[in-house]
């Protein structure tokens, strides 16, 4: 069985959930090999983490020399590793940086690239991807026809699968060119921890829009009762009520949770583009004509400031 390279998504050695989802997909295709580009001091802990989710091998690329640079050095490291291992596929998280690494890698390896896959299957020796396009209105079934398939995969595309694997650690010394060390990260401000799940990874997302009037208390209370992430519409972000990192939609995050609760959000096409593929959609809106109601599995025509606190209180009560 051939190896499938999985680029580990991590923050200073703390592995993020999409990595485990990618490992589950890699298992369908071949032998998962995690690629950790990071500090060698964290390699042990990362290896333990990915091994529990099926990584047969863990390549460690020490980033001491390249840590402060954007995208290009990681693409070079992956290129060299791919040339050495001839993998069946390379799976990369569909984050902003992941997609750019994949873009550069595709040119380097003269290989086809598919971004934002929401599913990846392997049948009859062929890797096929599913993508959701045009604001989720169409589903595209595609494959790579040249080189090593490079696929960026969206969060929640697969369920992580626990199951211990060998997790054999192997140091890989990549040779990084000076040309790749040109876009330098001069300062980095980690996102403030909210205590809630990350928006794109969350199983439940509770969002607020113009109808909140800028008061997200009720939205946040419901989110916390459900253990959900908090999102916002562009209108709420443009009004300065929430930072851009909360924005769900075409120019913000695309989410595909099990449950999406839209509160005081009318449901413009740009917002739909970011949430239409959610499994179950619920909306609370005062305006019964709001287009969001065309999408919902369940809708409440009413004031979110009275409905949401009552729902949150009842959930807390049931939890005991």
């Amino acid at each position: 069985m051939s190896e499938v390279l999985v680029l580990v998504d991590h923050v200073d050695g703390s592995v993020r959930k999409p990595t485990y989802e990618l490992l589950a997909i890699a298992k369908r295709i071949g032998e998962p090999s995690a690629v950790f580009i990071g500090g060698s001091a964290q390699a042990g802990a990362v290896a333990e983490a990915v091994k529990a989710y099926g990584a047969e091998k863990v390549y460690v690329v020490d980033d001491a020399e390249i840590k402060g640079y954007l995208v290009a050095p990681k693409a070079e490291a992956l290129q060299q590793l791919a040339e050495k291992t001839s993998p069946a596929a390379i799976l990369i998280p569909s984050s902003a940086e992941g997609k750019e690494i994949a873009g550069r890698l595709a040119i380097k390896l003269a290989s086809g690239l598919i971004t934002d896959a929401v599913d990846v299957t392997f049948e009859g020796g062929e890797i096929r991807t599913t993508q959701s396009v045009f604001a989720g209105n169409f589903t595209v079934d595609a494959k790579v026809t040249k080189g090593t398939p490079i696929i960026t995969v969206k969060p929640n595309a697969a369920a992580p699968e626990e199951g211990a694997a060998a997790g054999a650690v192997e140091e890989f010394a990549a040779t990084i060119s000076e040309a790749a060390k040109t876009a330098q990260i001069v300062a980095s401000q980690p996102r403030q921890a909210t205590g809630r799940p990350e928006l794109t990874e969350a199983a439940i997302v509770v969002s607020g829009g113009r109808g909140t009037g800028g008061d997200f208390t009720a939205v946040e209370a419901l989110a916390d009762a459900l253990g959900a992430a908090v999102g916002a519409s562009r209108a709420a972000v443009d009004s300065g009520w929430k930072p851009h990192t909360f924005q769900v939609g075409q120019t913000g995050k695309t989410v595909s949770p099990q449950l999406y609760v839209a509160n005081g959000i009318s449901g413009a096409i740009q917002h739909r583009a970011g949430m239409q593929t959610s499994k179950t959609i619920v909306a609370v809106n005062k305006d019964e004509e709001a287009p969001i109601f065309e999408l919902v599995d369940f809708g409440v025509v009413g004031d979110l400031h009275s409905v949401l606190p009552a729902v949150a209180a009842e959930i807390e009560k049931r939890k005991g």
Partner: protein
Amino acid sequence: MTLSNIVVLVKYVPDATADRKFEADNTVDRVGVDGLLSELDEYAVEQALQIKEKRADEEITVTALTVGPPEAETAVRKALQMGADKAVHVQDDAIAGSDAVATSLVLAKAIEKIGVPELIIGGLASTDGSMSVVPAMLAERLNLPQVTLASVVETQGDQVRIKRDGDTATEVVGGTLPLVLSVTDQSGEARYPSFKGIMAAKKKPLETLALTDLGVEPGEVGLEAAWTKVESVTERPPRTAGEIVKDEDGSGATALVEFLASKKFI
């Protein structure tokens, strides 16, 4: 280094508010659906113009570059109306159906043909394919640094500094010209063309180039040469509207709790 040339990448896309569809060969229908300059590229044009205005003593030429069908002229025209100085439109029937890899090849060759500028600016993503990879691919092909997804852009001399809202951190990224920059919709509201701008645009140079002008073989681009293949495109069945209840004295909350419980969310 003085800044003399900026190339802005613009794309002609089907209107997102129209009924977008696909052709029989699974490519995006770019002709049968009303198109326009991708909204997210307007921010790239805006940043190019702002940089030109801030560095008025350097006589910067802003060139809008597009690759697309004859209708794509609309996209570069809009850029000219906003204030770009000239436009280049690469148009060739052989290009139809190209993937991002081939598009980046055509863009790279076109940029080499018109002269590699100190600064290339693109948008966050196209509003149709929305892969967000062309700036990175172009940087790779031209062997340039990429300073991408900027929400704030500052340039001084040959230095470019941007703010980038990553998934886990907000970063300040710096680079030295020449480089490829891409900007998000947070970088600054794009201007509307003024009446004067619309009139002036009619006299601005718009050059059309074919693949032979770029030394690109027809076999290197288009649907057949794509490194990926779309096997099928399926329209998602429209979501059927579910149950909608009117809240009266708390009945809405009770009904919603019951719904969430029935779906095992609580």
